[in-house]
């Protein structure tokens, strides 16, 4: 097979592999859309006025044009195909020409929890575009025949590419100069050009125009360096992609004899790279899917997702509890699930509140805190469509905010081409509050808003804040009482539990399963026979299923020894009860 055929097959294989990975990561693609925003004046004022500005702008625009994961897939594959095409034009049709696309895709596959806290905008496309622009500039130089024009063109690239595409302009310059050194007999003046333009122009731009940029990052302009300085490994594939673009033109004439095993080895190495750099974490993907499902109020899907993880993070547990709450099953089912505290799998310093604070506070009715975190996250990282949507809903739901504020949010969301319908819906609520009253989220919020005002020093740990909020309600009713009981049970706070339990009895109605389990357990712990009898009565008498099962549990528990083995044995038989949670789930790590 000829080398060009290997290129074709290689490109096809890479695109196919990319498609498979993108399908597997469709939730990440959806999240990238939610975490983008159509560029506006605030973008320029806060982060846009820097070298390489074209890349985040175009990256954001393309991300905004991908409201559905399938569209994002097409655009990502398209950008990779364009990169491969340009690369082959610059370096010839050989397997080497696939390197930039492979490496940049490895970088994209490596995106993990960092997506929640990205400061760079449009990363899904910006880096691929940067490489494409660099190759285009090199291709332009190659197309010129006249040596004098080539030198003029090099100067042009050296002077003006940096402000637009940042370090990718320097990479293009490096590629041009290296190829000139190889191709031209008297091309030594290109070294001088490289030193002058590549070494000095960024500083000239920094001194003249970009006076507000931290000089340490001059040669990182256009890269998402602010997101990766604390975890440099993520940068490796991207750095190699840049290096490959710089070297490929110089290697254009290099045609080593291809042996049959080499392409096979190349495929294996490429596969290993994709596998090695790709971030695979079930909980991460489940959280993303649950978040999307919750947004659509698809609580069945949220619960289905939760079932897929045997070792969930607290984020997953919180989403599951929200789904149960919306379905009215919280106190019947919340402890039927492993209440584990698996930390989120990230080397970055990202907290659970940063991952889920805005939506989880929102769905739990603490909308002041949802808005607070919406702004904190916007300030720390970037303003996003998703955060604005929650801010708009919060402003609308409180009923105390000025219409001007709600309109500001809606106007900003409305700049996103695929969000006009969403804006129309909420603008309709603003203009006609009777429509708002019919909104399911709003109706739930009204039930959750039924609490006494309290103050918190901080709300930086989302689950702690929620537990304090619900477990410290002086006089909860209805749904709030269920949440208060759930919080008291989660905190194993016996005194508070009894307070709410009495209220529940006073309200009448069915005692939820876990509440009954907790009541009989706490009565037993208190060693108060009168109390035990009373609870047994509440639960339908001593022959009731809960009481009988508890007698069995307490008998076995008193005879058991060897903590770990016992925990495992009890998990199998009582893992879906509050008793198991109370005895064997020792401490929750809420952040």
């Amino acid at each position, binding site marked *: 097979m000829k080398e060009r055929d290997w290129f074709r097959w290689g490109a096809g294989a890479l695109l196919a592999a990319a498609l498979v990975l993108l399908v597997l990561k469709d939730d990440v693609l959806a999240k990238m859309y939610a975490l983008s925003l159509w560029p*506006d*004046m*605030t973008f320029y*004022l*806060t*982060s846009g006025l820097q070298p390489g500005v074209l890349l985040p702008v175009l990256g954001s625009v393309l991300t905004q044009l991908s409201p559905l994961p399938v569209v994002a897939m097409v655009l990502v594959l398209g950008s990779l195909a364009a990169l491969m095409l340009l690369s082959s034009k610059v370096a010839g049709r050989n397997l080497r020409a696939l390197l930039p696309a492979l490496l940049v895709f490895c970088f994209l596959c490596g995106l993990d929890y960092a997506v929640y806290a990205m*400061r760079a905008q449009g990363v899904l496309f910006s880096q691929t575009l940067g490489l494409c622009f660099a190759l285009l500039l090199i291709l332009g130089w190659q197309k010129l025949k006249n040596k004098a024009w080539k030198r003029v063109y090099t100067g042009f690239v050296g002077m003006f590419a940096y402000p637009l595409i940042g370090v990718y302009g320097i990479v293009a310059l490096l590629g041009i100069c290296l190829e000139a050194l190889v191709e031209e007999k008297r091309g030594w003046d290109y070294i001088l050009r490289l030193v002058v333009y590549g070494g000095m122009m960024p500083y000239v731009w920094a*001194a003249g125009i970009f*006076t*507000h*940029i*931290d*000089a340490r*990052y001059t040669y990182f302009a256009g890269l998402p360096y*602010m997101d990766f*300085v*604390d975890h440099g490994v993520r940068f490796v594939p991207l750095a190699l992609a840049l290096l490959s673009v710089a070297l490929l033109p110089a290697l254009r004439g290099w045609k080593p004899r291809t042996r049959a095993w080499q392409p096979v080895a190349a495929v294996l190495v490429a596969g290993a790279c994709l596998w090695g750099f790709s971030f695979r974490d079930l909980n991460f993907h489940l959280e993303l899917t649950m978040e999307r499902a919750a947004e659509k109020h698809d609580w069945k899907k949220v619960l289905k997702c939760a079932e897929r993880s045997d070792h969930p993070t607290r984020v997953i547990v919180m989403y599951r509890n929200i789904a149960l709450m919306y379905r009215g099953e919280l106190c019947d089912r919340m402890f039927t699930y492993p209440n584990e505290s698996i930390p989120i799998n990230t080397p970055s*310093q990202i907290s659970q509140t940063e991952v889920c604070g805005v939506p989880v506070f929102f769905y739990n009715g*603490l*909308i*002041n*805190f949802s*808005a*607070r975190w919406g*702004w*904190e996250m*916007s*300030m*720390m*990282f970037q*303003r996003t469509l998703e955060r604005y949507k929650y801010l708009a809903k919060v402003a609308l739901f*409180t009923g*105390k*905010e*000025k219409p*001007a*504020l709600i309109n*500001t949010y809606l*106007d*900003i969301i409305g700049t996103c081409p695929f969000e006009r319908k969403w804006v129309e819906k909420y603008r309709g609520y603003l203009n006609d509050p009777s429509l708002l009253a019919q909104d399911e989220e709003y109706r739930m919020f009204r039930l959750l*808003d039924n*609490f006494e*005002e*309290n*103050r*918190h*020093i*901080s*709300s*930086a740990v989302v689950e702690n804040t929620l537990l304090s*909020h619900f477990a410290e309600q002086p006089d909860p009713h209805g749904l709030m009482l269920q949440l208060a009981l759930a919080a008291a049970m989660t905190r194993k706070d016996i005194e508070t539990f009894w307070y709410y339990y009495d209220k529940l009895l006073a309200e009448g109605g069915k005692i939820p399963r876990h509440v009954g389990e907790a009541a009989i357990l706490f009565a037993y712990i208190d060693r108060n026979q009168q109390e035990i009898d009373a609870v047994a009565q509440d639960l339908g008498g001593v022959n009731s299923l809960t009481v009988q099962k508890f007698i069995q549990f307490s008998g076995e528990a008193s005879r058991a020894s060897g903590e770990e083995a016992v925990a495992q044995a009890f998990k199998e038989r009582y893992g879906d009860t509050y008793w198991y949670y109370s005895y064997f789930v020792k401490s929750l790590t809420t952040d």
Partner: protein
Amino acid sequence: MRRFCIGFLALAALLAVSCGVKVPSVTVGGEAEAAVISPDYTDIVFPCNFQPLNFIIQNPGDKFITRVSGVNGGELLAKGAVVRFKLRDWQELLEANKDADLTYTIYARRNGQWTALASFRNHVSADPIDEFLTYRLLAPSYEFYTAFQIRQRNLSTGKDREVYNNRMHYNPKEQQCMNCHQFRNYRTEDWQMHVRQVLGGTLIITGDEARKVNLKTDGTISAGVYPAWHPSENLIAYSVNKTRQFFHEKNIHKVEVQDPASDLILYDIDRNEVRNIASDPLAFETFPSWTPDGRTLYFSSAQQPDVAQFSSDSIAICYDQIYYDIVRMSFDPATREFGAPETVYDAQSQELSALLPRISPDGRYLLFSLGEYGTFHIWHRGSDLWVQDLATGESYPLAEANSDDADSYHNWASGGRWIVFTSRRDDGLFTRTYFAYFDRDGQAHKAFMLPQSNPTETYDRVLSYNVPEFTVEPIRQSVKTLSHYISEPVVQAKYAE
């Protein structure tokens, strides 16, 4: 060739004529409909050296023409719903109409017919405003921040430049905050700002020299916070505050910022020395401000609500029962000694809180903000601007300038005829900068928002403008120079008993 040139010129002339703006000759309807423009620049008094007041027309219509004519002559025409005036034309119009009215007439085309909306007038004050305004631009966050800036606006031309941004020393693990920029006597030769966390310290610039100082000493409760440059001596009075905040679960105020402890200190720049000047353990002293003659220091002071029960937790509980008065102390620049505190405005007895005393440049008026409680009025919707006539002792609200939302952080321009303040009147969340004319009778006129060259940006920018400070000249340092100063090692201030 010649024919071609003539043809080209004729075509250009035709284009110019056809594109020129003309007042529509045919109008229908009466003048009943009021013009609705945003920002609201109707019936205001603005300075003769001010940048163009561009705005957006919000009345219905598919085409618009705006005509601005001066009583003393001159006319501007602009077309479109977004009205932007050329700087030179605007300046000429203002120059011709100093201390005179401008009449605005907006023509709206609806269904192919032109309607004239009701005209409105603005008055061009002959009193100029200080040319520069320095402010912070940031998103309304609470604890966390990555991107914000100190910027300076040339109020005559509208040019806006960055003074410093906190990404200059970006550190992903620790943030950098900067605040409280303040200038001596409206000039930029001597000024200061604080940098917190990364490379923290107080940057004090005196002429060509800069020093980054740590004002926290063993004898003071914190580093310097709210500054007040002495007008003639090399002294800065600061409050030192132990500040904390807590968050409301559902209250519209969202957050409360409190000082469970605060005192006043005096920093001697030449000696690099601080000393306590007001440190009553039963009182919270804050927001110092000198009179223009430098012989009196005003500040806000609150009594602890209940000393017996007092703790940092109980202050959170009784957060809405902490009331600040305006207090003053005499100062002798020769001996550098202060007199006894004297209450100037007793807000506590009214169960109100008076903050941020600022004395007018002529020394006659005390400007302050009055709210329901506490020390951070920008989060209190009931906060308003008040003045006290120091000659008569009469205090009154600046009703024309105030709004139904938070109005706070105010300053006088050097001429004493203009005040600047921040307000959340537009949407309740974003703090925007407003100006108001303060006339010779001690009354403020209707306030107007800091304009943008493109008025749509006013609302596009979901950022708050705060700490507005006037100067008569631009800041002399570049971003890079300030960045260099900030990266210098911090100098520890000494404490004097």
